[in-house]
């Protein structure tokens, strides 16, 4: 098959195009482009399908794992792809390492070396205990982040543009020095001993929680996998989508409570706003990706989305006449657990009529089939309710779903 590679302005990037076998993948195409251009290694290339002129839609990005044929749309002899140079790339590990090395090295410089002589402070510097603990806390934090970069994180993308290294390093290194300057200052005023202990203690707990969040995120991706998104769950992820950012923000709050500098709080505000944006973007992306259609799982609602559900139990005799009933509301995270809880309440209610045979009707097919045939439950929130139901069920009970 012949593949023409054009730039976004329509100019031919590779003269005469490329000839590839019919079974070639996008990765093969990228390799072939690299062989011809030398400069553009695969992660520098962004390949998309051409858009009709004037179209405002986003172009489809070619996935390197897929076969070229899947993008051919009937015509198997000719394919035109649009090439964009993403610029020099670095791996995410390199990027993170550079970001975190700055604060890890610069902070101790302010603690150990007579930096403040250059700012015009003469005489001996008395070091408060909180300044020493802050040094350990800070270095532990960035050491943890570097270790996690190499041994824990599994990245969704392999590389990032080189320019991000300069931007991110400027951010981390400047803020690191700015905070270090104030915390290690000769005229530093410490907070009370109790406040310091609360701050560092809370911060440390949050750092451990943050580590646990990173381990949970790591286990979402297989070691051989190439990125891809999964629904995070377990621990704090059942409450918020990005518990890793939540714990990171709170651990900085702990550090600031103990050290109390305006510089630290400025950093906290900036970091919080950046991470909030990332978290909102990720939440939107996961909700869009896991829409519950065509067999894709539905992204579960998080804590701000607890539902108020009305439960009504209607009790009829064998002629269909209503003989009793009950109604109340509960709070749930999603619909299925609400249905399961309704069945459990119905069983409790039915215990009053224990001498007669009972039929229970529910419109929750998944829940009913889970009870009747011991199928897997559709939602983690149901598990304890199901256990109750199994326990309450009399052997003659008949389940219907309508």
């Amino acid at each position, binding site marked *: 098959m012949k593949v023409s590679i054009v730039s976004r302005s329509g100019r031919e990037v590779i003269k005469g195009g490329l000839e590839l076998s019919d079974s070639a993948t996008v990765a093969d195409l990228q390799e072939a482009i690299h062989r011809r251009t030398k400069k553009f290694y695969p992660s520098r290339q962004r390949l998309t399908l051409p858009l009709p002129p004037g179209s405002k839609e986003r172009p489809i990005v070619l996935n390197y794992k897929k076969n070229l044929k899947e993008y051919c749309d009937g015509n198997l002899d000719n394919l035109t792809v649009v090439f964009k140079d993403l610029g020099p790339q670095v791996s995410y590990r390199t990027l993170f390492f550079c970001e975190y090395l700055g604060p890890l090295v610069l902070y101790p410089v302010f603690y150990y070396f007579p930096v403040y002589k250059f700012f015009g402070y003469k005489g001996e510097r008395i070091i408060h205990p909180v300044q020493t603990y802050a040094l350990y806390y800070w270095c532990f934090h960035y050491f943890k982040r570097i270790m996690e970069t190499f041994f824990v994180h599994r990245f969704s993308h392999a590389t990032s543009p080189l320019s991000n290294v300069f931007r991110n390093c400027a951010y981390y290194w400047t803020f690191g020095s700015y905070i270090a300057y*104030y*915390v290690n*200052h000769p*005229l*530093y*005023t410490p907070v009370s001993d109790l406040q310091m202990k609360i701050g560092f203690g809370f911060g440390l707990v949050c750092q451990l929680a943050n580590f646990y969040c990173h381990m949970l995120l790591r286990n979402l991706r297989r070691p051989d996998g190439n990125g891809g998104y999964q629904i995070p769950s377990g621990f704090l992820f059942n409450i918020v989508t990005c518990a890793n950012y939540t714990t990171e923000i709170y651990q900085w709050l702990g550090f600031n409570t103990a*050290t*109390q*500098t*305006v*510089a630290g709080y400025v950093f906290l505000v900036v970091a919080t706003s950046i991470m909030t944006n990332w978290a909102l973007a990720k939440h939107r992306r996961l909700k869009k990706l896991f829409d519950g259609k065509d067999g894709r799982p539905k992204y579960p609602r998080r804590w701000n989305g607890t539902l108020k559900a009305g439960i009504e139990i209607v009790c009829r005799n064998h002629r269909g006449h209503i003989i009793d009933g009950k109604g109340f509301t509960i709070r749930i995270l999603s619909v299925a657990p609400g249905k399961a809880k309704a069945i459990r309440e119905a069983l409790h209610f039915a215990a009053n009529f224990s001498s007669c045979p009972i039929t229970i009707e529910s419109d929750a097919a998944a829940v009913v089939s889970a009870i009747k045939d011991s199928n897997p439950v559709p939602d983690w929130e149901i598990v304890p309710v199901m256990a109750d139901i199994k326990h309450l069920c009399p052997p003659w009970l008949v389940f219907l779903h309508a």
Partner: protein
Amino acid sequence: MAGVLSLLRRLYLTVYNWTVFFGWSQVLFLAVKTLKDSGHEHVYNAVEKPLQLAQTAAVLEILHGLVGLVRSPITATLPQIGSRLYLTWGILYSFPEIRSNFLVTSLVISWSITEIIRYSFFGMKEVLGFAPSWLMWLRYSTFLLLYPTGISSEVGLVYFALPYMKESEKYCIRMPNKWNYSFDNFCAAILVLGTYIPGSPHMYGYMLGQRKKALSKSKRE
């Protein structure tokens, strides 16, 4: 309901733009008149009140962009208005020693001509729904000259104010204090000057791009 709201929006923006336009016209008139009658040393005292009022009113422009009343990116308006406010309050208002400098005149004249054109352009658009092409041309061409004069006056005034900042220590906060904070106005001013190095070419380039876009569009219509 939507009709009433859009009418209110137009009414408000019309009043806003023409009010600020009037403020800047006053600044220009007083500046030129004082320059002719009594010399550049007296220009600041003549224009102080309308200048402070008109320039501070620009804060509303950031708010307009934030609430979506107008379509202008905050990344373009914030640095521009921020630097203007810094000059108006942080330099001219705070350091009276600098007010007799000849750069005050070039600064005030550059600002006021730019703003008179800009606000009348927006004002026309709100009232008529379009702006005359000559005004459009002025809006996207005068900056070619007025940006360099305005920016060099700004930089020059901050530079000349530096010794007074260092000497007076005005607005400085020193350690030790409970919140472990310090602020040095002199260092802050040097940082501000530093931002002009990448900032000025960036803003000039941005305006050149806007000029190309706006003037080529008006030619096509």
